[in-house]
């Protein structure tokens, strides 16, 4: 006999749902609490908004200073830098300055203003959990940290003896255990259902450019940028990516928007990921120039 427990709490700017099955109620309860504790820890380390987060301390330090961060932040930075290299900068964690300029993120407390030419190559991992910026740059982990939080929560559930589990952070989710689960996919406007995917021991992330767009200087602007050009991408698209981990699935939704299908296929193959990309322009969707 197994007991199922399902809880939802607001974290990471969304609603996070944790589901766990275990042999006893007490075991399931401990597993769920441990999962939420991990999510909270990731939130506190990697929030762009919290003044005490690792990112905020990095932004508050002078350029060239080594800043001690949590080992989890290093893990996400390492993965993000690898993704930036493999996607030829289409995924770039150094775009926060552009997002601040467009009003998508608040201006952080920082002694400098980002250098428009600075990018992910200017972020140095020095070892011993120290990070240094070589040029003025603000980091945004919004496109990857949520997925990482989901992965950490899944690991916590497994460590605490859960047998079948699922963590869903506002649509970025991962399932683990022997049973297959069917996930429905919202359509590009978020109103209906456009498909579904059955998953076992896999992660899924979806992203819709249209859902985040804002009017900016008389043009449509979104939170997904092709970091190389600074142009908004994916304004009329949505992408659903399946990958072995939620961190990779989350980050690859951004590559899906910025890359040509052939390039995306190569990057996705490297990470063992699959995707389906829905372009709304086909059905008379969003009109407007990208900023």
């Amino acid at each position: 006999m197994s007991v199922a427990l399902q809880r939802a709490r607001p974290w990471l700017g969304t609603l996070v749902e944790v589901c766990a099955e275990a042999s006893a109620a007490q075991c399931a309860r401990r597993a769920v609490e441990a999962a939420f504790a991990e999510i909270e820890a990731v939130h506190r380390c990697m929030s762009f908004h919290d003044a005490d987060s690792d990112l905020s301390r990095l932004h508050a330090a002078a350029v060239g200073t080594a800043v001690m961060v949590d080992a989890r932040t290093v893990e996400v930075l390492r993965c993000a830098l690898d993704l930036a290299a493999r996607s030829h900068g289409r995924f770039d964690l150094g775009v926060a300055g552009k997002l601040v300029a467009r009003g998508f993120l608040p201006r952080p407390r920082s002694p400098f203003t980002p250098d428009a030419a600075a990018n992910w190559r200017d972020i140095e991992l020095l070892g011993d959990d120290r990070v240094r910026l070589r040029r003025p740059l603000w980091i945004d982990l919004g496109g990857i940290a949520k997925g990482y939080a989901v992965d950490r929560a899944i690991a916590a559930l497994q460590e605490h003896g859960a047998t079948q589990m699922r963590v869903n952070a506002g649509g970025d989710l991962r399932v683990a255990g022997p049973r297959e689960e069917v996930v429905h996919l919202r359509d590009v406007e978020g109103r209906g259902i456009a498909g579904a995917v059955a998953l076992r021991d896999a992660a899924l992330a979806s992203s819709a450019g249209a859902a985040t767009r804002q009017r900016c200087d008389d043009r449509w602007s979104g939170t997904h940028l092709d970091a190389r050009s600074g142009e908004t991408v994916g304004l009329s698209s949505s992408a659903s990516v399946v990958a072995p981990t939620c961190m990779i699935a989350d980050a690859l939704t951004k590559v899906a928007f910025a890359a040509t299908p052939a390039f995306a296929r190569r990057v996705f193959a490297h990470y063992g990921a699959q995707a389906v990309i829905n372009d709304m322009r086909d059905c008379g969707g969003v009109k407007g120039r990208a900023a």
Partner: protein
Amino acid sequence: MHVRWLIPLGAAVASPVALATQYLSVPQAQQEAFPGAGEFRAVPVPDAAALAAVGVPAGWAPQIFEADASGKKLGWLIVDQVIGKSEAITYALALDTAGAVISLEVLEYRESHGGEVRMPAWRKQFVGKTAADAAALNREIKIISGATLSCRHLTEGVQRLLRLYALALRAPA
């Protein structure tokens, strides 16, 4: 990693599209927040004038419970609801006697799309292996992915409950 894409390739499938999950009942939320409490006493909602000062519309009616153990007050559990664009969230905020947050739990989540399974241009780009099996689409929706929901309404709800505490529940200094 095992994946089966279930993408509709034919005509639109009419299907009620709604997602609803109950996480906790009110008594369960009471017990989890205050395991030592022997009694949960309903506290009347403040009058309209007081509610106006909290900055909420007329008709707002949170349920307020005072948790007691052998006549000693442990804190409050306040059950409230927020309505977003297409979702309704019932949640419970537990406060200790000093007004500090003990826990915040979602009790029930309901989302209605007011639509049906739509048939957009999924055919366009598939990266990786794909398959089609539209039948499974009509299953009950338990998990959903897509345009990320904001928890802004929930955050605003918690803020109004903290104002309600300061106005109506806090012991006079």
